[in-house]
């Protein structure tokens, strides 16, 4: 019988989640110099988590942006990428918006941005307010903390510096820990890590290696593309999406030192596809997952049954789908980045037919 399963092995102990009165506690004043800007996510109290893949480092920065009424907000910016390029003195093709995160406390939209390449390369965080004004997030003399990922690049050797980096595909704050999915550009190290926030014990953070298994016994290690925390009853889970597109759930409490943990594939969402961004939301008393994809549009996945969902244990033929039911939201096409804004809407970076990338507020379907 074919079994699709995910086995997770814990390499290092997960520390118990620290109880934080305020997420800005434990941060000390300092300056962050980004060498690159990858995925970003918000922790509580306006603290922004910024990944710097080239330096294999995660920064926490208190933005001080903690006030606002998110319920009334509808951010919208035409040609966001073009505007960002203009601010950086560049052309749109030399600028990448690597991620988008909404500050749940203020409703302001944060962008992780890279300009250029090589010696000219620059990375920064931009903030878009409700008027659509774009400004740089200051990273000088701000309350901050950093976590250097285990097995970070060794000290620089040679003229060009150390070539190894850890691409971060996604990160999220879950109950006092920061979960980080990543992939190296050298050794095949596809990992999901958990680091206690605010990083006081970096080296003892957990490193969870995920094996993407099939065919009964063969394990392999596919990188997690995006993931989201999801509470099932009183149990904290992580829902992780892989390329081609299994959706897998892990129980966070199962991740114990030295034990192999089976994650369950709860949906098969189709092939030739890369999940881009996802989050969980509630509507009319039901839970859903909204997921943006590279080639299968935006999916609204019924999540109420995640807790009871059977593991998919038979092969899914012909590029088909199985497991949790979903619908493709036809009205949303070209979504590149996605984050939840409030109970009824999300913010998306949407590529229009003319190629321009616009920031839009969309109603949750």
């Amino acid at each position, binding site marked *: 019988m074919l079994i699709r399963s995910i086995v997770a092995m814990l390499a290092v102990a997960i520390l118990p989640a620290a109880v934080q009165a305020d997420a800005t506690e434990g941060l000390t004043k300092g300056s962050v110099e980004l060498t690159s800007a990858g995925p970003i996510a918000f922790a509580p109290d306006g603290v922004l988590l910024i990944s710097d893949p080239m330096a294999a480092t995660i920064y926490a920065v208190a933005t001080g942006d903690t006030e606002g009424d998110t319920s009334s907000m509808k951010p919208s910016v035409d040609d966001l990428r073009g*505007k960002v390029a203009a601010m950086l*003195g560049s052309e749109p093709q030399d600028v990448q918006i*690597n991620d988008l995160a909404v500050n749940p406390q203020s409703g302001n939209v944060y962008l992780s941005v890279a300009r250029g390449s090589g010696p000219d390369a620059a990375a920064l965080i931009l903030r878009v307010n409700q008027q659509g004004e774009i400004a740089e997030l200051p990273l000088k003399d701000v309350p901050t903390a950093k976590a250097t990922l285990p097995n970070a690049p060794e000290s620089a050797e040679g003229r060009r510096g*150390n070539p190894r*980096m850890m691409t971060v595909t996604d990160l999220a704050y879950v109950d006092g820990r920061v979960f980080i999915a990543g992939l190296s550009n050298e050794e*095949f190290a596809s990992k999901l890590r958990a680091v206690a926030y605010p990083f006081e014990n970096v080296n003892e953070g957990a490193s969870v290696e995920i094996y993407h298994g099939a065919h009964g016994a063969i394990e392999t290690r596919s990188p997690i593309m995006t993931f989201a925390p999801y509470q099932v009853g009183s149990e904290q889970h992580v829902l992780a999406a892989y390329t081609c597109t299994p959706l897998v759930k892990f129980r966070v409490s199962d991740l114990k030192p030295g034990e192999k943990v089976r994650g369950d594939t709860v949906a098969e969402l189709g*092939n030739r596809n890369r999940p881009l961004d996802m989050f969980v939301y509630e509507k009319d008393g039901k839970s859903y997952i909204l997921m943006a994809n590279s080639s299968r549009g935006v999916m609204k996945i019924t999540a109420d049954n995640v807790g009871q969902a059977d593991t998919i244990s038979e092969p899914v033929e012909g590029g088909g789908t199985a497991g949790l039911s979903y619908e493709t939201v036809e009205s949303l096409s070209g979504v590149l980045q996605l984050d939840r804004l409030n109970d009824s809407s999300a913010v998306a970076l949407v590529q229009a037919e003319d190629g321009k990338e616009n920031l839009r507020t969309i109603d949750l379907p």
Partner: protein
Amino acid sequence: MKLLRIIADEMPTSRASVIGGAAFAGGTSWLRRSMVLSGFFIALMVSGSRASAVEVEFRQDAGKYFVEASGLSPETLEQLQADEELKAAAGLLQVFTGAEGAPDQPPLLGTYRLDGQTLVFEPRFPLRPGRVYRAVASVASEAEATTEVDPSKLGLVTIFEVPRGEQSAPTKVEAIFPSGDVLPENQLKFYVHFSAPMARGEVYEHVQLLNEQGQPIDYPFVNVGQELWDRSGTRVTLLLDPGRIKRGLKPREELGPILEEGHSYTLVVQESWRDAAGHPLTEAKRKSFKVTAPDDTQPDPAKWRINRPPADGRQPLAMYFEEPLDHAMLMRVLNVVDGQGKPVPGDVQVGDQEQRWSFAPRQPWQPGEYHIVIATTLEDRAGNSIERPFEVDVFERIEAKVTTETVELPFRVR
């Protein structure tokens, strides 16, 4: 809105269209003569309700461009000096990308300072060679200047093209690893090295894997959104989709394996790929290879042969592997330590299609004990590491468990 006159004698004809398209606001009162910078054109078009002596200049200092506004009125200076944060500065001078832009185009990021009686704008990022920028100074009513720029108050537009500087040598593909032309069916990755930094964000548009018929294979590489560049932007990692290497996985069932034993393939890096300066490569690069049986065995340091160097010289230490190993990791994860465990500084070379690693010490070898320290993450071409095979059969095969992070191979110099 009307363009009064173009200073034709200072402007190459080819630039006229750029200037002609510039956006000017307000009425038409007078025209100022431009400042000429290092042989490149600059044009000032002024309009506004009131004349002013404000002059705007793009100035280069230590390789960096600044924009300076001088000739500010005493009232303006007083207003600026009264506020340490120079909040009013953005109402007086703003710099934009391009010779023209939409009304809602945001200005360049940057900071302002007062240098004597001159207002200086320092762009947050260096202005780019070959690009055109425009500075817009308010000369209409300085007293009314606020942090909000009102187009009706704009007067002085200065357009500047950053000199291209020395044309650097065209960029080319320097190497592709693995360098061998016979690869295992479960080959995991390629490294493409360039002679100069490359543009980001277009890897998968410019690299193809062709089958024997010359047809591109669909989706051969894992696209994780971000590209797997090194810090210098001169090396990119192309990861073959592990889902299509592994047996029994859905992607492989549906799309078929990427590489099959007995067949030949060609990796093509297209000429159209742009370097960081925006120029295409000098030529396309093709790497053809034959595919042989999958490699499921782990690298085994016990099988490696060491060529010990003699004492008192700097002859390289050489080590030979039973199979080609990962080029990038060979350059990084092997170190030599002396009898006290102290690292020996030296230079690494990898050769013989990644089956030879050599290490030349910077100081002559001393007689005595040394160790080669090898990270167990070191992989072969199929991703099998010293630590674990790439593919693990959890029920049938007992995983050869290596718990240490390094293995050491001792050798003695005499």
